[in-house]
């Protein structure tokens, strides 16, 4: 019985961690910058590629994750300077542009590196509990995803950069007049979002096959998580929505099968948005006037 409970908790945790990790970079780019980034999945793919390449030349996996973060961060910064900065305030232009970027990245990767990349072995083995056994790496991922979100919240709430970033996103003109270097803040924020996407791509890389079109699998979960979470407090919203969505998905999947689990998740997302158009975090905002943007 305890084992059954542990198994249900483990499934719930992996479902929620998967949603949260998929959404991590998008929390910053969509949630904070209000930029609809359809190349999000491809940023994750780049992170996985960077990690795989590093592991292949002998870099230990934890360090490879750092490499993946730095590589996609730099990539994000360059992309922001060259292309993205023209699209602030033009959400729909950004949407089309990032779609184009995603096509270039995915197919370009296929042409340059071939149809797949060397896989990364899943580290750390498994632990047994009764009839079940659990992947230690997934348990670590659950913890890491929570830590990353806490870290992100800390960065935005308690550091000067966070303060400047929030000010810039709320009112760029005002922020500029206060002496904040708005362009730099935008650049670093976009780079951070890209870097976080690459980071979670690298973290999830051992659990998936590393291939040019792997990013597609993360796009829908990521957008649903962030949109359902809402904009009032994106970080808390994303945590809330990944929790609620996996609370729905896990038991339905267990009882009726994975297909109905997925359908339940999608329907639940539609329902939440209908009831709470501003997302789950608007609940919190009603109780407590928090500023998170």
């Amino acid at each position, binding site marked *: 019985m305890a084992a*059954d409970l542990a*198994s*249900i908790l*483990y*499934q719930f945790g*992996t*479902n929620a961690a*998967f949603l949260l990790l998929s959404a991590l970079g998008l929390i910053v780019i969509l949630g904070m910058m209000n930029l609809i980034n359809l190349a999000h999945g491809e940023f994750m793919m780049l992170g996985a590629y960077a990690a795989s390449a590093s592991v292949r030349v002998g870099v230990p996996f934890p360090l490879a994750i750092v490499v993946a973060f730095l590589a996609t961060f730099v990539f994000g910064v360059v992309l922001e300077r060259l292309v993205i900065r023209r699209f602030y305030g033009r959400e729909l232009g950004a949407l089309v542009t990032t779609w184009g970027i995603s096509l270039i990245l995915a*197919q370009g990767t*296929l042409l340059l590196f*071939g*149809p*797949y990349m060397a*896989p*990364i*072995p*899943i580290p*750390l*083995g*498994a*632990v*047994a509990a009764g*009839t*079940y*056994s*659990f*992947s230690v*790496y*997934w348990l670590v991922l659950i913890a890491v995803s929570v830590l990353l979100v806490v870290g992100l919240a800390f960065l935005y709430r308690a550091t000067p950069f966070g303060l400047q970033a929030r000010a810039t996103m709320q009112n760029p003109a005002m922020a500029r007049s206060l002496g904040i270097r708005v362009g730099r803040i935008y650049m670093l924020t976009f780079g951070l979002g890209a870097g976080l996407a690459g980071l979670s791509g690298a973290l999830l890389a*051992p*659990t*998936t*096959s590393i*291939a040019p*079109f*792997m990013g*597609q*699998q993360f796009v*829908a979960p990521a957008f649903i998580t962030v949109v359902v979470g809402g904009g009032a407090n994106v970080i808390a919203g994303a945590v809330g929505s990944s929790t609620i969505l996996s609370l729905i998905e*896990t038991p339905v*999947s*267990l009882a009726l*099968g*994975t*297909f109905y*689990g*997925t359908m339940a998740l999608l329907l639940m997302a539609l329902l939440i948005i209908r009831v709470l158009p501003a997302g789950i975090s608007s609940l919190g905002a009603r109780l407590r006037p928090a500023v998170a943007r």
Partner: protein
Amino acid sequence: MTESVMPPGDPATAAPSDTTPSAGTASSGPTRRTLMQGAALAAAGTVLARPAIVRAAEANPVKIGFIEDQSGNLSIYGIQKLHAARLAVQEINDGLTLAGGPVGTGVLGTMGMYAAKPPVVTSGPGAKLNVIDNGGTPDKSAIVEADTQEILIPSGEKGLLGRPVDLLSADGQSNNTLWQQLARRMIQQDKVDVLVAGFASAEREAIRPIVDQRKQLYFYTNQYEGGVADEYTFCTGAVCEQQVIPVMQYMVEKFGPKVFTIAANYNFGQLTAAWVRAFAPVLKAKVIGEEFPPLEVSEFSSVIAKVQAAKPDWVMTLLVGQNQSNYYPQAAAAGLHLPMASTVNMAQGYEHKRFTPPSLANMHNAVNYMQEIPTKRNQDFVARFYKMFPNDPYLGQMAQNTYFSIHLYAKAARLIGTTEQEKVRKTLEAGWTIEAPEGSVFLEPATHHASHFIRLAEANAKHEISFVREWPMIEAWWLQRLGVNLVRHPEHKQYTPQEDPFFKMFT
């Protein structure tokens, strides 16, 4: 010559054809090579008789239309197939062909009546191929097909019927609408002589109405769920009855009766799972659970937990596509080390090469081809392939099917002396056996499906492949059972197990 080799209309009687000089020599201790040379000579005779037409024909290559996904999600399979097709076309243009001929009987050994150098059934030290028994020790006393024959032989001419062969290849981009557009272009505008195309069943179903409407000779070379009975379509890949039953039988004998099926939630997965269910009682297996994850799902913790809770003896995994192959590393990491069986993995998407061991340890698949097959004819084929494409990652089942299908087409067209599609189609309905890299393949006339040399591939903890059991010739018998005979009763549909009363008894 073109008209007299095989009177159109009734190929069944025309096939043994005692009206032609080449078949005449065939009945008096012939070799297939002389038969082919005879056909080539006769073709040459035609060449001399009608020089003007031939000159026009030389400028006008034989066109093989070829559509596969070279970009997008399915390109991992499409590029293999394209390269194998290029190899086959180059060999045809270099004057080579695979051994084989019409009027095979479909039974090992007896096809030698007509074959040039028939496969020799042998046992003991003459057998070069080691058959490995269940325990993994080589057992040389087993009966095997001797592996001394050179299958790539001269065809007697460079190209086909005095014309060069062109491979017109287009990229379907894993997009069904584009597939339809490209098929139309190939058929109506390029007027290809034969169409070789299709990975996913959805792609085949997208273009089959167009093929039927224009009476286009069409080869579908993929392994699939079975059931296509189409006058114009030849399915040269393996189907459920050739793969599911052998692999289940082996798994039940070796690991026990309790099976848990995980199948992709779409046509292929559901239909193959229906086969598993229907044949479980016959093979003394017991399906204790089934799970159908959608194609979009890439995170499998609840599926894994269900399998763990059900405690099966082995797992049948019928997972398809990039997302779903994630199941294997995730299951291995979660400590799920049950024996696995499949009909799709390893042979197509070379998961054993792409994933880190031991994700696919203890995986079993009844395949008609994998590049690891240790026969000489296959090793030669693999060497030829990698000589042409040194950077390719793998040479899989569908690529081999494409390769021998194109050779088979060329042989049939050469024999009948024309690329006129209806005549080639009727010629292909003459019971051809072709010596493919996998072994002898027999194209069954009535159902347009092929019998295959099936081997049970097993991956060990290091992902090394060994072939632990062999079935030298398994027929694609299910459409025959349903009474399909495309020679006598042309039709254009896909049967599903629901139409077979046998399946209704169990599902």
